[in-house]
């Protein structure tokens, strides 16, 4: 092996692409009689082969680009919205807010309030009465909902939704209210793709008030749609309202065989700020047969004030309640197999 030290230098240069032809030839000759160096060179070859076999996935990357652009556009619009008052101050020729006089500030706020009111009235000017024939935008929304890949991220929508309102209509239909480029009022059956699309969009934090998001969670419980499920998972992870996160987990928890839900519940158990959500996560995971020891480790890592409640719930759920005895991780996985 000691004799191989200088050959190892050659192999290092070969890896770095710095070995000359003569050196490579000598190394190849040495490898014929040295299994140690030969095995290293073979892995080098295999890595080159593995790399050459990887072809960029054009369709997947195009989808990635669209998703990034969608998110970037959404963030740019949000930032622009957050910056309207400074812009107004700037366009009014005022000094920075800290230096503005109380009288000037009052004038600016009055002007801003007038603009908001005008915007509100203008925005409502386009509202269609319920039951009116959908206009071109509604047709486009419907087309997008139909064309959407069931697995696509709700953020990757051709429309940005806001001001979402969901109400129960008559005869099991749902009344949807939302803004895209105009405010639409549609009546659709629960199985209509537009309903799933709007519910999924309403669940995205920041696009609708908390009341609408809670209503969307309630409606989502009736919609077995993968887009809605994806939005529920996102809401469980990202929604600023604990009530929405709790509701999202409650709906998701009805499916005990879904690895994505189990992963989300684990994440909630480990880092969710709301104790209520963590308690529900324990219920779900214990009920899914996850080993008590696995849950105990997650519970024990919780902050002191919360830990007691979580330990008590874990004890209750794994000693005589459902999940008693706990299943091994392997058994848990086997249960998931179709």
């Amino acid at each position, binding site marked *: 092996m000691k004799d191989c030290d200088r050959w*190892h230098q050659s*192999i*290092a240069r070969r*890896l*770095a*692409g*710095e070995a000359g032809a003569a050196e490579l030839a000598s190394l190849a000759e040495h490898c014929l009689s040295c299994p140690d160096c030969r*095995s*290293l060179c073979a*892995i*080098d070859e*295999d*890595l*080159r*082969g*593995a*790399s050459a*076999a*990887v*072809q*960029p*996935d054009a369709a*997947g*990357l195009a*989808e*990635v*680009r669209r*998703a*990034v*652009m969608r*998110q*970037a*556009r959404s*963030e*740019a619009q949000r930032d622009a919205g957050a910056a309207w008052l400074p812009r107004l101050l700037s366009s009014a020729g005022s000094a920075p807010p800290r230096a503005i006089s109380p009288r000037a500030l009052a004038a600016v706020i009055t002007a801003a309030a007038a603009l908001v009111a005008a915007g509100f009235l203008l925005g409502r000017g386009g509202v269609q009465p319920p039951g009116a024939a959908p206009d071109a935008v509604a047709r486009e929304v419907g087309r997008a909902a139909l064309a959407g890949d069931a697995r696509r991220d709700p953020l990757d929508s051709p429309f940005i939704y806001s001001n979402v309102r969901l109400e129960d209509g008559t005869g099991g239909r749902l009344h949807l209210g939302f803004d895209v480029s105009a405010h639409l009022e549609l009546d659709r059956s629960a199985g209509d793709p537009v309903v799933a699309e709007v519910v999924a969009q309403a669940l995205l934090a920041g696009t609708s008030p908390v009341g609408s998001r809670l209503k969307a969670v309630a409606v989502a419980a009736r919609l077995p749609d993968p887009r809605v499920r994806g939005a529920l998972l996102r809401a469980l992870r990202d929604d600023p309202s604990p009530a929405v996160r709790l509701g999202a987990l409650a709906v998701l928890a009805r499916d005990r065989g879904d*690895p994505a839900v*189990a*992963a989300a519940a*684990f994440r909630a158990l480990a880092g969710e700020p709301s104790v209520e959500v963590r308690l529900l996560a324990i219920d779900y995971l214990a009920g899914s047969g*996850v080993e008590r020891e*696995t849950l105990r480790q997650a519970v024990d890592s919780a902050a002191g004030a919360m830990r007691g409640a979580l330990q008590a719930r874990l004890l209750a759920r794994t000693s005589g309640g459902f999940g008693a005895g706990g299943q091994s*991780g*392997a058994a*848990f*996985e086997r249960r*998931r197999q179709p």
Partner: protein
Amino acid sequence: MPATDKELAAAAVGGKLAAYDSLMQRYEGLAYKLAFGLAGNRDGALDIVQAAFLQAYRNLARFRGESAWKTWLLRIVLNEGRDWRRAQRRRHERHLPLELAAEPEAPGPGPEETVLRREKRDRLLRSLRGINRRHSLALALRYFEGLRVPEIAEILGCNETTARNMLFRGLRRLRAELAEKVEAAP
């Protein structure tokens, strides 16, 4: 003459999203190959690329042009790859299955050969994820990006001698990891 990376980045900072789209198109192939080396499968690679492009967009204003945009982006891909791997490890530790997505394979002599080749490659990529992180990153940058030692050193923030050593030590660690996997196989 096509716009330079720096010009496109500046335009994107100024609000021209189309410029950022051009930047993504220019480097998505490179980013994907590196991400594939880190994740070992298509879905993971796409997740990493998406997270990296989004992260790069959010931090565009911090890009000063002191290094090449490509180097800056690849650093972000490495960071996102690290986060992805952590998340996968946590998922794996919690007994949840980690599916390797079906990956298109270049046509081989026959189905049996293709399967064997794919198994070998999957084993290699899994082992690459099992070794020391910096060694693994150095190898991914060398093989999947085809970068030279000075570029690898710049991205990993070390000198060229260290980068060379990491490549060689990484290869030896990879051999040991592969041997362990073969012994552990039923």
